[in-house]
């Protein structure tokens, strides 16, 4: 068993307590949603609609965290060339794109009864959509390049550039909007709303961490399998 491990530059990941973490994360999500739905009174104007925001806003925040992780791991990959950083960046990008899509869909479901339209070219919406497209491109790049090292280098550059572009995209879209109309932003928060938002933000954060870890585990296990198959073909010689 130990000799099998030595044939790969890194060990196969073990799930350990992560499975328990996942169960707890989902349980916590259910609890957070139940509490926030129970304690927040229907909004004067929006009725029950604000309950959508308990998922929409946390998803948007955690999407930002995921993209930040992509930037960090991509940079680390380019610096240290550790394959694991590439796989971590890829996992974070996939989960980020997932939350990004969720943010967009929930935003639309919220916007339809609130604004009367499914979509508005609002700064936040538009830049979120652009980020979704950028990281969809990142995932497509990964899908279209087979050679692991080349894929790692290219997607590290693409992921880093995408994440760096986020503030520039947001600023440009905001300028584009403000030239036409003043954007309305919420500035005060009802305490029960703020508490609910915070509870759910952590719930989605835990789910995101669990997903990234699981996705990374799957990718790393696959790579270890490839490395060990390689070692077997080479007659047990180690890469060192």
């Amino acid at each position, binding site marked *: 068993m130990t000799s099998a491990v030595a044939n790969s530059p890194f060990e196969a990941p073990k799930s350990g307590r992560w499975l328990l973490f996942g169960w707890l994360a989902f349980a916590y999500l259910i609890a957070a949603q139940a509490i926030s739905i129970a304690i927040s009174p229907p909004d004067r104007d929006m009725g029950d609609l604000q309950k959508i925001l308990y998922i929409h806003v946390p998803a948007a925040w955690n999407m930002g965290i995921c993209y930040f992780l992509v930037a960090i791991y991509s940079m680390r990959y*380019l610096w240290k060339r550790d394959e694991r950083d590439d796989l971590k960046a890829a996992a974070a990008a996939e989960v980020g794109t997932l939350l990004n899509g969720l943010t967009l869909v929930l935003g639309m479901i919220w916007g339809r009864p609130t604004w009367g339209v499914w979509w508005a070219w609002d700064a936040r919406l538009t830049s979120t959509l*652009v*980020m979704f*497209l*950028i990281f*969809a*491109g*990142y995932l*497509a*790049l990964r899908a*279209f*390049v*087979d*050679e692991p*090292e*080349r894929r790692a*280098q*290219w997607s*590290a*550059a*693409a992921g*880093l*550039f*995408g994440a*760096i*572009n986020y503030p*520039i*995209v947001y*600023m*440009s*879209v905001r*300028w*584009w909007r403000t*030239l036409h109309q003043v954007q309305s932003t919420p500035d005060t928060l009802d305490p029960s709303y703020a508490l609910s938002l915070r509870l759910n933000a952590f719930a989605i954060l835990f789910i995101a961490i669990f997903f990234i870890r699981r996705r990374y585990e799957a990718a790393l296990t696959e790579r270890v399998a490839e490395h060990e198959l390689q070692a077997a073909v080479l007659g047990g010689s180690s890469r060192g």
Partner: protein
Amino acid sequence: MALRDEWHRARAVAWKDLTAERRSKAGFNAVAALAVTILVLFGFALGPDSEAIRAAAPGALWLAALFAGVLAFNRSYQMELDGGALEPLLMYPGARRALFAGKLMANFVFVLLLLVIVIATSLVLFQVAVPPTWPALLIVVLLGAVGLVTLGTFYAAMASRSRAREVLLPLLLFPMLVPVLLAAIQATKALLVGGAMNDAGAWTSLLVAYDVIFLILTFLAFDYVIEA
């Protein structure tokens, strides 16, 4: 010393790309014809109302330049891949950023010529008058072209060597270019069809910031993208 060598190499790559482009009959003329066609199609899409067309002219001309330019970016590496010339090119000693600089210069010239044709055509087709502030327009065009070409040349280095290169380059490039396109279109609009001058100023500074950030980043990252 080393920097001067790199400059010579970059210049040689740019000269080589442009000479080959100039001599291949299918090259620039076809791409320019495509750009003009796109402009005409925009005219149809936006209807015969001359007010609406005039308002949409800046967007149409930048998008026409972008769609046609994407072809140039992929061609720039396709030229190397076709004859197996990429291998000798990568084996020349010295830093690879010289290759990037050379390709960047060649693509810049290409896109700039494209923009000249596109702007001239849209002045006629979309009934826009040359503004008295045309030097400002020139600056916007130059800065916008730098933005398009920098990321275009960079992403084409990856996309042209992947499977599905035709679709991958626009998929990667277009969302990344949103800030440049917005800024270039809005600044051009402010200068061409009126609007406060300070609008154009703000957009121009955004263009400068974007160009500087991504010029630095692409030069730093090109080594990782071209090798392997």
